[in-house]
């Protein structure tokens, strides 16, 4: 499947698989923000973008041309329902992760009075 | 050989391991604590000695405890070779226990409980090495021996002792890894690692290159503890340990466990024939011959008595390895050359043990009584410690291979083996080393009995800088283009004893301490001299003199009537089982 698309050339690939390209753009942006931004909150935002990229990847994979959303009253064919279910679970996990992360950041701010990772490093080595 | 199930091998190993507990518990009551040590030593010797008649009549006692690794059983077997080592270690542990008491109390050492506990653990592991039934069980006890002796090497808790301990661990664990690797290879090649007299048969069909690699790994790994050059350097440094440790462990148990490993390797894993076929016999013999000559040369230059003895040990251990290696290389040669060399090598295990133990005990007695450790400060000390130095002279003569002492018998077998196998070069190496032995032991005897503290001869080898220059040349010139003058002020006694200058009892410190003992009133005239003590034991406590006399007597008995001392008989049995040749 993928191999066939790869064989068709890069332009073709971009046109037919634009969702996947979008996915990997999000992954890249998320990873970049996590690594490059010194601000802890922005790191968490980067982490969210990264995860969103993966969610999108699953949803895109479930898509079937011309299909309906998988609600039984509508006529088929349906898009695959399973990835939607999985990603709902994953979103819940992601939300709780974000909550824990923000809670930790609040504690760090109360303790050290900064949200910048580099300042934090200096403050902690001074201890 | 018939194998009989018996708990005796296991009991022999466990008795001193169990003794550790009461030793640790009675830390506050030294007398009780030492009674445990003696009790354990006596019962261990009793258990092992009780197996001697059976083993000599062809029985093998074995304790089998079930699988330890897949296809590898955890079993202890008292076969003739194992009995040789076990009997030796347990017998000498008894005398060393008494000696330890005299030594440790005489110096009022710290951490004596730890010392005695670690000693018991070491002997337990050494007997485990002796009775191991296969390569992996041997490896287990070999590593435990390393762990158990480490506290003894680092006992002093000085920087130097810690450094020696680190070096010891690094070398011996490195050797352990090599043994482990070799054992894994042998197991992979043959599917078994059990000791079989004459070697594991299927090893002969294995890939020769792999078999050679495995042999090299195993011999190298055991060679660390056997102090084969260039892997010997931990041994002289480990002399920083208390002298009974240097005596029993670093002349008998630990280093002999390495030699014993090589013996097992040559006799019971590969078999002498295969070792010779693979060409490893010659290689091993070359290393051993090199070691025994070079170590003797280095010993010449050591001023510290224990370091000189250590290099002597390095050299003497290689006699044993040489015997095994020549025995392996000579399997095809006519006559009984191979068997003679093997007997010589194996017999040197007990012979060297008795003699070297005497020498170390003497060095320790000197340290306790007079605080002298450097040979240059021992002029005339024979008057202060006549019995000790007398025993020293006897044992030293044995080391050099002079008849009626033990060393002569084993070297005689070795020489016959080497010559009749056509290994003239090995015979020459043996003889050269014998001469060198005299060269480094005679000055000690001479200085002790025939010199006075104020009147000593020049000792160019020890005092002069290395490189062959004469005293009195211009200090600025460097003849060999090497390093420059180390002591710009000149005339300083050489500090090549390997210890820090201010270390207790060595170097400058030693000279000062020796000087304290000298007094004008002691001699017949007004010159400084050692106090004169009589031959009847006034020089030290009998806790130390007893063991010295016992060990010295042992070396003489082995030398005069080897046939009555049980060791030669066991060695003959071992060689007969392996080669089928009766000596």
């Amino acid at each position, binding site marked *: 499947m993928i191999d066939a698309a790869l064989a068709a050339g890069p332009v073709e690939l971009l046109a037919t698989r634009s969702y996947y390209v979008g996915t990997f753009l999000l992954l890249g942006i998320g990873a970049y923000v996590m690594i490059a931004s010194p601000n802890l909150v922005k790191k968490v935002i980067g982490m969210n973008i990264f995860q969103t990229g993966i969610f999108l990847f699953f949803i895109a994979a479930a898509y079937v041309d011309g299909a309906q959303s998988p609600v039984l009253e509508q006529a088929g064919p349906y898009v695959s329902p399973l990835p939607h279910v999985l990603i709902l679970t994953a979103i819940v996990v992601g939300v709780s992760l974000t909550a824990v992360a923000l809670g930790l950041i609040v504690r760090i701010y109360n303790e050290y009075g900064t949200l910048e990772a580099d300042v934090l490093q200096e403050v902690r080595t001074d201890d | 050989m018939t194998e009989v199930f018996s708990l005796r091998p296991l009991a022999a190993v466990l008795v001193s391991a169990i003794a550790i507990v009461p030793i640790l518990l009675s830390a506050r009551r030294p007398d009780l604590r030492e009674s445990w040590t003696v009790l354990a030593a006596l019962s261990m010797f009793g258990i092992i000695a009780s197996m001697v008649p059976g083993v000599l009549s062809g029985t093998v006692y074995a304790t089998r405890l079930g699988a330890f690794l897949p296809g590898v059983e955890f079993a202890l077997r008292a076969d003739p070779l194992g009995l040789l080592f076990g009997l030796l270690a347990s017998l000498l542990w008894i005398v060393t226990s008494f000696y330890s008491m005299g030594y440790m109390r005489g110096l009022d050492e710290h951490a004596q409980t730890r010392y005695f506990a670690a000693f018991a653990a070491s002997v337990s592991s050494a007997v485990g090495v002796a009775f191991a039934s296969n390569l992996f069980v041997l490896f287990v006890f070999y590593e435990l021996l390393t762990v158990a002796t480490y506290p003894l090497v680092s006992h002093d808790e000085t920087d130097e002792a810690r450094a020696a301990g680190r070096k010891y661990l690094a070398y011996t*664990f490195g050797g*352990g*890894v090599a043994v482990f690797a070799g054992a*894994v290879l042998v197991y992979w090649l043959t599917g078994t690692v059990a000791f079989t007299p004459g070697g594991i048969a299927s090893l002969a069909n294995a890939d020769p290159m792999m078999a050679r690699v495995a042999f090299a790994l195993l011999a190298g790994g055991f060679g660390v503890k056997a102090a084969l050059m260039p892997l010997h350097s931990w041994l002289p440094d480990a002399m920083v340990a208390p002298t009974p440790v240097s005596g029993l462990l670093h002349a008998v148990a630990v280093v002999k466990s390495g030699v014993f490993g090589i013996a097992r390797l040559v006799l019971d894993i590969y078999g002498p024939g295969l070792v010779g076929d693979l060409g490893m016999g010659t290689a091993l013999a070359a290393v051993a011959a090199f070691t025994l000559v070079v170590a003797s040369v280095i010993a010449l230059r050591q001023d510290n008595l224990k370091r000189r003895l250590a290099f002597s040990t390095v050299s003497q251990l290689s006699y044993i390895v040489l015997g095994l290696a020549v025995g392996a290389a000579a399997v095809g040669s006519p006559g009984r050359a191979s068997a003679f060399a093997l007997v010589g090598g194996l017999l040197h295990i007990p012979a060297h043990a008795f003699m070297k133990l005497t020498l170390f005990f003497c060095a320790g007695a000197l340290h306790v009584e007079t605080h002298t450790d450097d040979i240059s400060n021992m002029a005339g000390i024979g008057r202060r410690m006549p019995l000790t130095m007398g025993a020293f002279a006897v044992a030293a003569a044995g080391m050099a291979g002079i008849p009626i002492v033990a060393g002569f018998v084993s070297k005689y077998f070795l020489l016959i083996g080497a010559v009749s196998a056509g290994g003239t070069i090995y015979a020459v190496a043996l003889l050269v080393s014998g001469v060198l032995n005299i060269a480094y032991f005679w000055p000690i005897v001479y200085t002790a009995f025939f010199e006075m503290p104020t009147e000593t001869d020049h000792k160019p080898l020890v005092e002069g800088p290395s490189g062959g220059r004469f005293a009195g040349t211009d200090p600025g010139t460097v003849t060999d283009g090497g390093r420059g003058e180390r002591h710009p002020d000149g005339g300083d006694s050489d500090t090549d004893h390997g210890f820090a200058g201010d270390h207790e009892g060595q170097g400058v410190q030693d000279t000062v301490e020796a000087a304290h003992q000298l007094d004008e009133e002691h001699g017949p005239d007004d010159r400084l001299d050692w106090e004169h003590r009589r031959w009847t034991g006034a020089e030290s406590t009998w806790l130390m003199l007893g063991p010295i006399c016992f060990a010295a007597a042992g070396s003489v008995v082995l030398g005069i009537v080897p046939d009555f001392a049980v060791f030669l008989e066991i060695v003959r049995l071992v060689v007969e089982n392996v080669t089928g040749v009766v000596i």
Partner: protein
Amino acid sequence: MTDLPPFLVVLPLVASVVVLFAGLVRSKTGWPIAALAGLGQLGLAAVAVYRVFTAGPTSYVVGGYESFYGIELVIDGLSASAVLLVAAVSLGVLAYARTAGPRGNPFYATYLLLIGGLTGVAVTGDVFNMYVFIEISGLTAYALVASGDTGRSAVAALKYLIVGTVGASLYLLGVGYAYIGTGTLNMADLSAQLAQVGYGSTLVQTAFVFIAIGLFIKTAVFPLHTWQPEAYAGSPDSVSGLISALVSTTFAYALIRVSLSVFTPDFFATADLAQTLLLVGAVVSIVAGSLLAVSQTEIKRMLAYSSVSQFGLVLAGLAVLNQTAIVGTSVHLLSHAIMKGGLFLAAGLIATATGAREVHEYEGLSERMPYAAGAFAVLALSMVGVPPTVGFVGKWYIAFGAVQAQLWPLAAIILASTLLTLAYFARLVERMYFREPATMADRAESEATAAQPDAVVADGGRPSVGMYAAVFVAAVLAVTLGAAVVPFAEQLAPTLELLLS
């Protein structure tokens, strides 16, 4: 009764909720309930192990669906051992935590939740379900690290959280690739489908690489270990004991499970890249982890880097991929958990009694705390692999497996790892036994450090019986379990034959 697998997961989860609500009614109810649940869990795990080893693997499909559609829980020899390990270690740490803290019902609720999550990872037979359990374990582990009440533990937990989430997300991405290729998430089904897609396919190989990298991060394989030293060192002593023993171990188990059950040895035979990835990870981890451990001055960080190196060994066994090596990997995984957990608890015990947290503060420890120093030394020797301890036996299997596979360089590295491990433990043992206790000035300074808020437990209190018991049991097990390895390997053989066929 085939309902055992869900009970293994449900019991700690329910107990966790009970603890939380009981805390609303009465405080100080956390420990007794957690201990009861832990005992129950241990009992269930023992039954599971007994059953697997007598009657063979069992599986259970949650919710009464048919297999492949519902979530399947599978217990075979490997997962049963992991479950038993989780139950046993968590109970031991619980004994330690009673006085060592942290206290309070929320802590015990999180603790039980972590146990539930880890057990879930061990028993699940579904790759997405595994992701969920990985995240449950991850979340609770972050929370436990942060339970230290100090800034340091909060920073450590946040770093752990961000890196750990990336790891789990990469795993999920890999699962996504596999799902796109096959349309199934059940491990057994997935394995068959992947074989049909073809192991040479880019899709399958990419899926494996993402999953492996994700789990590398979670297991802390060099150079993806960056979260781990701070997380271990910054958390309270009982927590570092628990997570060092169980969390990375379970994720390494997950990697083994996915590699063997989903991708199968045939995949590794086809895709050289996959085996190379494991091999490189293993070798680099062993060497770099040890070297970094040598250069640490803080005990807990040193132990943390030691874990990096030891998981390299586990990975090495997996990369060799023959039965001997996999037995070795399983044995080393289990024994490392006991040894490392014991070492962290011993370090905590020593810190509680003396305030010593740095390498140099261990000088002369044998005189101040002879029993704790003795236990520490025994555990360290077992870690080095001195025979006949269990550490040696595990290493023997891995090394012999590598020799059988004729991977000579790897075998050499595995053997050399003994010396590398010795390098960082020998200096500690030497300090404990052969140096004088720190001088008065140093001691005053160390007390000053202990008084700082940065030190996690600085009450200078007396260690309790429970703390000593946990450490001693670990030390005794490290020595005696060596004898149990051969029977264990025999019991494991049917499972492994199934996995490796």
